[in-house]
């Protein structure tokens, strides 16, 4: 379905030059709106399913689940965890980006890659390594450490991009006015990077709300865990759907909150020739900052790396079936690659609309793509099972439906990238193109998107790497016999064969690391 819209729209618009100047700017091109609406629709597919299931027991049943004391308790626990993890990720992600981009930290290029790499570690792998190496870490703080260690790059990467796009002139002004370095950092640098930091923080918050792997292993009861318990314990889908609805409402609230927090601060695009920002000398604190950077890397990458090696050396089930490993890697590449492609195609118009045509309608559309992101994979998976088997039985448990599931799950990751990149592309260049007789869509295709290409690519890379790690929806929707690395990994750990599972985990992390390095390259430019 989604494919048809763009082609149809190629209907020739009137020559722009004949239009009155005022009309030209009002409203977004209809093609863009239609295409964006497809993205919005795809993203809200699970919501329709949730409503159907949640109201299975009638409004009384809905209220009964909603008003249980347990529901409020789980909500409070989820909110506490998401709030704490998001705050920590913003602090760590921002400071890490500042260290890498603006200071004289030793080996900062290497740290730039290392700080992005934890994104490649699935939360269930990190959670498992922590609980097996430090059994006492279970509970709130264990879940906190695991989730912060795998998700702070969501903040780090956009902040790096933002800091590189600004030239540090304001910081110099602040310093010349006698502000101390700490005050410059908090008052000027952080404020400039704030929209990027909150955008990353939003992804972290939604991710924490939806996460199952880390919280289940760390035995910290959350909303998502309650949803799983409901499915597994009683096979009753109604309470799970009611809880899912609450999660969606919470996500809408968080998304709205982020919009408020992001504020009106937009990218200031430097006029004239950009120049490198002055390097901040860390001085005597340099060893301390270096130790902190090493500590972050040790916690986020060192522990999982140590543990995976340990599994391989200790377990008796160790053995590498290269053919099986290769097949799983190929399937993973294929489905995650197609997932990234479809997601990006759907995200481009939404991101462009959000960046270039700000208004209530586009804001709603953008938010719509975010709300389902807080839903656990099992809920999105069941929604697509429910709809897929009824609407497109021929595609059920085939690649297209799985790829669509990835688009539903990960659309916001790409939308954010597109929006930020398009917002950073100078509007002036668009206007030049328009004045030379290009239509709005032509300008978009020839000028805006090429300028925003690194950001769009970064979004696609983010979707790719997240899709390689996805498990619950993949388990339900993958083609029978075509297992992804995550499925193989799950399969072995489920039988307690951790040594046999380790190679799959390592290849999974290695595969996901490729886009992470590319991502880092893209934002460094």
């Amino acid at each position: 379905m989604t494919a048809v819209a763009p082609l149809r729209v190629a209907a020739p618009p009137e020559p722009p030059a004949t239009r009155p100047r005022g009309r030209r700017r009002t409203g977004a091109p209809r093609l863009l709106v239609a295409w964006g609406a497809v993205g919005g629709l795809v993203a809200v597919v699970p919501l329709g399913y949730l409503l159907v299931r949640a109201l299975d027991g009638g409004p009384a049943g809905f209220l009964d689940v909603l008003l249980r004391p347990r529901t409020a308790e789980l909500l409070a626990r989820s909110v506490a965890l998401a709030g704490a993890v998001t705050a920590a990720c913003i602090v760590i992600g921002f400071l890490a980006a500042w260290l890498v981009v603006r200071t004289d930290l030793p080996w900062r290029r290497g740290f730039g890659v290392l700080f992005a790499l934890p994104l490649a570690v699935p939360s269930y792998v990190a959670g498992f390594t922590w609980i097996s190496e430090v059994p006492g870490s279970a509970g709130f703080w264990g879940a906190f450490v695991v989730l912060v260690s795998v998700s702070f790059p969501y903040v780090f990467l956009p902040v790096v991009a933002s800091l590189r796009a600004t030239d540090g002139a304001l910081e110099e002004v602040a310093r010349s006015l006698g502000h101390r370095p700490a005050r410059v950092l908090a008052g000027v640098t952080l404020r400039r990077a704030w929209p990027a930091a909150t955008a990353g923080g939003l992804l972290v918050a939604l991710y924490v709300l939806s996460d199952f792997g880390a919280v289940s292993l760390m035995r910290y009861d959350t909303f998502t865990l309650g949803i799983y318990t409901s499915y597994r314990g009683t096979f009753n889908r109604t309470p799970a759907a009611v809880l899912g609805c609450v999660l969606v409402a919470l996500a809408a609230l968080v998304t709205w909150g982020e919009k408020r927090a992001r504020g009106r601060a937009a990218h200031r695009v430097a006029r004239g020739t950009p120049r490198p920002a002055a390097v901040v000398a860390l001085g005597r604190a340099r060893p301390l900052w270096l130790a902190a950077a090493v500590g972050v890397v040790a916690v986020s990458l060192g522990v999982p790396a140590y543990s995976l090696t340990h599994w391989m050396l200790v377990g008796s089930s160790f053995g590498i079936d290269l053919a099986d490993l290769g097949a799983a890697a190929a399937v993973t590449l294929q489905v995650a690659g197609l997932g990234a492609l479809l997601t990006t195609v759907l995200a481009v118009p939404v991101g462009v609309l959000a960046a270039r045509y700000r208004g209530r309608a586009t804001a709603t559309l953008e938010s719509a793509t975010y709300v389902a992101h807080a839903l656990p994979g099992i809920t999105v998976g069941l929604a697509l099972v429910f709809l897929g088997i009824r609407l497109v039985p021929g595609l059920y448990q085939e690649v297209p439906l799985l790829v669509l599931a990835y688009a539903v799950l990960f659309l916001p990751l790409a939308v954010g990238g597109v929006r930020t990149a398009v917002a950073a592309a100078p509007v002036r260049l668009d206007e030049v193109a328009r004045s030379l007789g290009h239509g709005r869509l032509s300008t978009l295709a020839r000028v805006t998107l090429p300028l925003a290409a690194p950001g769009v690519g970064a979004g696609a890379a983010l979707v790719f790497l997240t899709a390689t790690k996805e498990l619950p929806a993949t388990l339900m929707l993958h083609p029978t016999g075509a297992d992804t690395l995550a499925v193989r990994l799950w399969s072995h750990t489920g039988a307690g064969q951790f040594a046999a599972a380790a190679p799959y985990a390592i290849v999974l992390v290695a595969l996901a690391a490729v886009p992470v390095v590319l991502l880092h390259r893209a934002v460094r430019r």
Partner: protein
Amino acid sequence: MPPVRHRSGLRRLAAVLTVAALGALPACAGAGGGQDDGVLTIYSGRSEGLVGPLIEQLRTSLGGTEIEVRYGSTGEMAAQLLEEGTDTPADLFFSQDAGALGAVAAAGLLAPLPAEVLAPVPPRYRAADSSWVATSARARVVAYNPTLVAEADLPTSLEDLLDPKWKGKLGYPPSNASWLSFVTGLRVIRGEDGARQWLTAFAAQEPQRFENNVAVIDGIAAGTVSAGLVNHYYLYEKTREIDPATFPVRNHYVPGDPLGLVNVAGVGVTAASDDPAAAQRAAAFLLSAQAQQFFADETAEYPVVAGVRATGQSIELPPLESLSPPEVALAELSSLEETEALLQEVGLL
């Protein structure tokens, strides 16, 4: 006419993206084409690592029939089957526990098994309406760390676990199906009030929650807890990887008490199966002496067919008869909603 050229550029871009995104997808779907054409599809809630070799034996046994297996967690697979309804591609549901089979059967998605398939299994281990049959049995045990718990201190009944010495030292998997079956069994044996009484006292012992049985075993081995309520065979899953002599977890059986309830894993044929005969042959194979021997030797479970004994292995199981489990019909263990409500009430879920 530059604008025209640029529009065609856009059109090309749109076309390329569209074709790539959608055109390529069905092409990648492969020749499988989705629905089963003479393919027997098994939804297995039991992991590939455990039952994979058995499926290979099934392939040989069924000869010409092509078999496809999807692995998943039993709970998630039951939810998926319920969403798929009568359109399910599955022919067979191989479940980790009776509750999931009961839920799928209650939705009318399982077809009754013929008498000749059910014949080798005692009535105790099949559904009253023949919609599913047990393939293996497993006992509830108190797993413990021998360095932390002296043998003399091991419980001989539910009540012993309420002793203050166990406070904060017990582990349990709140969302695990076997644990829920145990609580349901407790309700059946002692009535709602009796069950509530014990569960309230148990909750006051501040037992620690774990994600699943394996996590409980890990917690016991690590000393996070001293003992835990699990199924007997999870210990053997661990000792496949780790030398049993150095692994500090032992099973303690509690005969004649709700703690020693016996659960089953089982199989059912879907009502939507397009080849019920082949699906029934597969179910019959799982009850054959060959498959039952596999469960006894490889997954350390109890066979449900008389005359099969574990052979030549390090695992020493007490005979099923010696466990004298409480007399609870498996069909009585399906009242999971009430169990969930009770567990929520006492704060254990």
